[in-house]
């Protein structure tokens, strides 16, 4: 009996001790698409995040705990999950989600609940709406302008466009028309298709009929391979361009020889081993590759896992600079964390060097993009 009582007493002490540690825990809510059409990029994001938590999960004396939820590629589920994380789990930071429409839904919740958010996809948020939000993805115009520069150098005068019939397709098209106008290149078509479509023969016919010098697409992952396959079938011989959203090994597998010679902009992580030794992102990129290899027992081959890893780096860096005495889980801590995020300076990530300032959700410059060429199934760095 006496023994039992002492056991109870000691476990009560242990419980309070554990409780004490937990109070200082930073909670990070992570939403990604583990199922549905966006899962082909959502699952790599989740894998990158697993590597990130294995890389470092403690900062300034606080343990960092990750809570991951699936949004099934559905923006309304993403919003519901974000609300759940904020209200029930009282997370200090939101990360997510894979698809742009879902991420916009998460951003709305972050803004409303005054929770800092680190996005992992190229969001389209400006002004006060983005006061609590940053993203680790490159702004689409920055990436597309790199492609347009490359087109200009190759002497392209007209370009045909085909993209997804969603906000990703719109983002690329807007970026393209802006920088193409400046470079004197004419965009001759604006064709769209859905991610789940099985054929784009009609759209591609229309593009080929416009006789463009080159073609650029605004798709992502394996659904993004469809236009290249259809173009090859129609015998289109001009140069083909793409965006960074295409870069994953499954795209290469599905597109096969039809995407030979494809030029695309990307974060330097994709060709980390081909970068010069003094490139600012090289060291952390190699660290990321080794920790990813250790966690998943497979090499990283896509850019998406690295965006999630960068989001984690931004969070760790900001949390290490929070000077406020407020404890994680409180509104004061969230505000302090947001201020710290917007004071990020020269933080080297895998996709580029981050400098966040209030007023813009993007924090990347020209160091975050390189042009790569798909040559016999391997992405090779092109000299700028």
């Amino acid at each position, binding site marked *: 009996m006496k023994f039992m009582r002492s056991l109870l007493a000691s476990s009560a002490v242990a419980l309070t001790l554990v409780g004490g540690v937990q109070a200082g825990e930073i909670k990070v809510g992570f939403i990604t698409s583990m199922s549905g*059409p966006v*899962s082909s990029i959502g699952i790599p994001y989740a894998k990158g995040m697993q590597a990130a938590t294995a890389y470092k999960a403690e900062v300034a004396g606080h343990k960092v705990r990750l809570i991951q939820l699936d949004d099934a590629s559905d923006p309304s589920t993403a919003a519901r999950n974000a609300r759940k994380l904020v209200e029930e789990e009282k997370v200090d930071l939101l990360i997510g989600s894979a698809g742009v429409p879902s991420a916009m839904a998460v951003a709305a919740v972050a803004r409303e609940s005054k929770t800092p958010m680190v996005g992992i996809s190229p969001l389209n948020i400006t002004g006060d709406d983005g006061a609590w939000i940053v993203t680790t993805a490159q702004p689409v115009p920055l990436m597309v302008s790199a492609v347009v520069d490359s087109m200009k150098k190759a002497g392209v005068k007209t370009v045909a466009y085909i993209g997804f019939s969603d906000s990703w397709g719109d983002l690329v098209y807007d970026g393209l028309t802006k920088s193409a106008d400046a470079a004197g290149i004419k965009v001759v078509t604006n064709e769209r298709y859905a991610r789940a479509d*099985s*054929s784009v*023969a*009609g759209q591609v*016919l229309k593009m080929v009929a416009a006789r463009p010098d080159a073609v650029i697409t605004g798709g992502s992952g394996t*659904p993004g*391979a469809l236009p290249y396959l259809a173009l090859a079938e129609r015998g289109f011989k001009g140069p083909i361009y793409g965006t960074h959203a295409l870069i994953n090994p499954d795209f290469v597998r*599905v597109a096969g020889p039809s995407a030979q010679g494809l030029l695309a902009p990307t974060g330097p992580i994709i060709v980390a081993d081909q970068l010069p030794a003094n490139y600012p992102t090289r060291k952390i990129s190699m660290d990321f590759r080794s920790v990813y290899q250790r966690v998943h027992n497979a090499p990283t081959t896509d850019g998406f896992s690295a965006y999630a890893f960068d989001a984690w780096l931004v969070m760790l860096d900001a949390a290490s600079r929070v000077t406020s005495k407020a404890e994680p889980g409180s509104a004061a801590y969230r505000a302090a964390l947001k201020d710290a995020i917007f004071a990020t300076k020269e933080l080297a990530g895998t996709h580029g060097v981050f400098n966040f300032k209030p007023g813009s959700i993007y924090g990347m410059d020209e160091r975050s993009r390189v042009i790569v060429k798909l040559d016999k199934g391997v992405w090779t760095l092109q000299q700028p």
Partner: protein
Amino acid sequence: MNWDIALILGIDGLASGAVYLLAGLGLVLVFSVTRVVFVPFGDIAAFSALTLAAFEMGRTPPTIGLVLVLTVLAVLTEVGSLVRQREWARVPRALLLWGGAPLLPCLLAWGVGGTSMSPALQIVVSVLLVVPVAPLLARVVLQPIANASALVLLMVSLALHFLLSGLGLMFFGPEGSRTQSLTNASFTLGAGFNVSGQVALMVACALVLSGLFFLMFERTLMGKALRATAVNRVGARLVGIRPARTALLAYGASSLLAGFIGVLIAPVTTMYYDSGFIIGLKAFVAAIIGGLVSYPMTAVGALAVGIVESFASFWSGALKDVIVFSLLIPVLLLRSYLTYHSEEDEEELDQ
């Protein structure tokens, strides 16, 4: 739009129409015999395509596991119902039929998976492997509620679709696959206008298979039993046709069709674990044009859907699916003017 473009679009539409034709036949067959709108049809087609892709990548397809689990469940259901009816003598035969038959393609796939086998054998095994899926699913889930209302059956079949597509994601992952083209031949018609051998093969397969279906329904006892059940379930029972048996045949035949669709379209479109659903949905539009009973009208509808889809993608890529599914509205309006509502009476008779 000039003649070249119209021709190319027409051929593209015929190719997808051929696929919708096969899928529509499967849907009409299952619906007329069992009153189930078989939503998981498309998923089975996707399974056969992805199974073939797994074989080509030198992997043992996870479909084997699915068939094995379904077999165990079906055997348990069958033996359970026999035991409840105290029909002990029929147990060994049930074990052999429900437990033995589905295992054959599994053993075949297990034996040849991972080895380098000829593409033709890979295709045959992929089709055979998905053939037991629909009959087994039906035995476990749909047959025990065969007399429920059509609405309940529809809901259950929709739930089965979500189950199968979830399993597809688990088995094959989120990324799509393409398989090697069955033929590299291409035919030149006129000036610089090519038809790829694959498209010709799809159309030919659709024609041959629908021809075989026609012969089966007209010339064989089995086909006549299926037709009899479709026309009048009670009457068919009175003359000694067992509804459970005809339902099994219908599911088996539709599974076979789904298997063919999978291997036919996998070389020309990227197949995902959930690609089957949209194929099934468009075939459903075709089947509705046929009133879910008429095979010839379904065939016409399928070709119309394929061609409308192809031209719509040229005129407005973003609105393609809107245009295809909008076809339903005039068709339903027309049908409701032209037909008498006798379905309610039929359902009364069933209960």
